[in-house]
C-alpha cells in the first residue's frame, strides 16, 4: 500500500493498493494553494482509505515536471511524511502517470503528454506504448518548450490540466511489482532559477 502525492499541477493525494486499486483520492486543482491544502489532503485521504502511516510500504512522489513553487511543496511533503513514517520515497515522472492512465484505459499507440509550464511554455513527454507489464515507454522528454515548439508527435496528444495521484500510485505499484527502476530522486524543474543580477550602477550622474 502506498501514499501518493503529486503537486506538478494542482495538489493530488491518493492511497493505493496493488490488488485493491485506488482506495481513496482527493485533489485540489487550484495551482496556487499547494502549501495550504497539502496537509489536510493527506490527512483526509488516509482517513477516507482507513489507513494509517504505519500500514504503508512507501510514499510515491511525482517529481514533475511542474512549475517550481508548487512542485516543490508536494515533494517536501512526500519526503517529510516518509521521514516521519520511516518509509522510503519512490520518485516518478509525473507525466508518466498521465500516460499510464491512458494506456491502462485500453488505448495504444504513440502519445504526447503536455502540461502547463506558465510563461507560454509547456512541459512535454512522448510515449510509444507500454512494456509487457503495462508500464508506459517514454521515448522523449520530459522537456520544456514554447507552446509552438513542442514536438508535434504522431499519435494522440493529451494536454493534461491535472495529474492524478491515484494513477501515479498505481504506476508506482506496477513499477515495483515489475522490478523496474524509479525516476531520479530530484525535482524536474527543467528551468534555471530566476536571478536578477543587479549591476553596479552609479547613483550620481
Amino acid at each position, binding site marked *: 500500500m502506498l501514499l501518493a502525492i503529486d503537486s506538478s499541477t494542482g495538489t493530488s493525494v491518493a492511497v493505493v493498493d496493488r490488488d485493491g486499486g485506488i482506495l481513496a483520492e482527493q485533489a485540489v486543482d487550484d495551482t496556487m494553494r499547494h502549501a495550504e491544502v497539502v496537509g489536510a489532503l*493527506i490527512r483526509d485521504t488516509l482517513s477516507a482509505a482507513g489507513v494509517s502511516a504505519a500500514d504503508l510500504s512507501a510514499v510515491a512522489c511525482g517529481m514533475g515536471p511542474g512549475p517550481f513553487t508548487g512542485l516543490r*511543496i508536494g515533494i*517536501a511533503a512526500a519526503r517529510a511524511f516518509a521521514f*516521519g*513514517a520511516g518509509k522510503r520515497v519512490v520518485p516518478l515522472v509525473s507525466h508518466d502517470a498521465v500516460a499510464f492512465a491512458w494506456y491502462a484505459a485500453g488505448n495504444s499507440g504513440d502519445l504526447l503528454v503536455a502540461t502547463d509550464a506558465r510563461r507560454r511554455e509547456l512541459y512535454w513527454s512522448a510515449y510509444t506504448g507500454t512494456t509487457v507489464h503495462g508500464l508506459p515507454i517514454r521515448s522523449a522528454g520530459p522537456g520544456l518548450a514554447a507552446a509552438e515548439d513542442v514536438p508535434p508527435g504522431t499519435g494522440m496528444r493529451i494536454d493534461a490540466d491535472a495529474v492524478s495521484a491515484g494513477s501515479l500510485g498505481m504506476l508506482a505499484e506496477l513499477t515495483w511489482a515489475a522490478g523496474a527502476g524509479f525516476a531520479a530522486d530530484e525535482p524536474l524543474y527543467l528551468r534555471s532559477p530566476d536571478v536578477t543580477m543587479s549591476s553596479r550602477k552609479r*547613483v*550620481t550622474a
Partner: protein
Amino acid sequence: MNREAPLVLGIETSCDETGIGIVRGRELLSNTIASSMEEHARYGGVVPEVAARAHLEELVPALTAAVAEAGISLDDLDAIAVTSGPGLSGALMVGVGAAKALAVALDKPIYAVNHLVGHVGADILDGSGTPFEYPTIALLVSGGHTSLLLVRDLVSDVELLGETIDDAAGEAFDKVARLLGLPYPGGPEIDRLAALGDPAAIRFPRGLTLPKDMAKHRYDFSFSGLKTSVARWVEKQQDLGNEVPVADVAASFREAVADVLLTKAIAACADHQVPRLLLGGGVVANARVRELATERAAAAGVALRIPPLSLCTDNGAMIAELGAQLIMAGHGPSTLDFSADSTLPVTEIQVS
C-alpha cells in the same frame, strides 16, 4: 500532551537557512542549521528561488541530523512547530508543506508561528543566563528584517513599534560591501575593514532621526538613503582621482548603522519605561553593534541581552521554543489549513 515540558520539533525556512530545532520545555536539544548562503554569494544577495530549492534538498538531511543529535524518538514528540511567516514566500512554503506532512505522518499537533516572535523566544534557550522577564524591548536586525518590538508577553502580547521602511540593515551592509568591492555577505567584511578605519572620518546621515521624521517615524528605520550617500561619497572620491579610504568608509558607515539602531532602541526603552533590551538577528554578529549596545544600555540603565550567534541568526530552535511556550501557556494547536504568509504581522504570534 505534556504541557510542563513539551518536546517540540521546529522547522524554519523563511530565508536562506534551513533550520531544524528540537527543544524540551526550555531546554535546547538540537539547533541544526543548513545554510545556502554560499550559493547566493555570486549574486550578492539572497536569491529566493535558489533558497527555496536548497530548502527542499536540505530538509530531510537536517531533520535526520537534528533527531540524531537530540537523541529522541519521533514518536515522543508532543508537537511540530513551523514558521508561517514573515519571510520569502516560496521558501516558507517548503517548510509549511513539510511540517504539515510530518505532523500528519506522526499524528501530532502543529503550531504555525511568527518568525519575528521566534527571534525573541530564542532568548529562553540561551543557557548563559536567566532569560528576560517581560516586558522587554527587542531589536531584531538581519538581512531580511529590521524591527523594534515591545514584548509584553511572548505568547500573547507583542507590539511592533517600528521597522525599516526600505532596506533591512543587513541588506545595507551587503550593498555597501558590494560598492566597496567586498564579497557577500557584507557584514563580516565591513566589520573586518572597519576595525582598521576611523568611524568619525565621514559623517554619513542617520536615517529618520531628524525632528520632522521623528514625529511620524520615531521607531522606524531607513537605510536606503545611507547606502546612496555612501555610494555618492565614494564616486566623488573616484571622480576626483583620490584613492578611496575603504577602511574609513566602512567604519563610518558601520557607525551610522549602529548609532541609529541603538539610538532608537534605547529611546523605545525610555519612552515605554522598559529597562530591558534584547538583541536578535544575524547583524548581532557585528562587533560594533554589540559594543555600542553595551555602552548605550549601561548609560541608560537598561539591562541588555544578546543570545549566542547561533540562536540570533535564523534557526529552527527558536521556532520550536515559541511552539513550546504556546503549549505551556495552554494554547491549542493550529489547524492544517494555514498558509505561508510573507507579510505576517508580528501581532499574529500563532496562525490558527
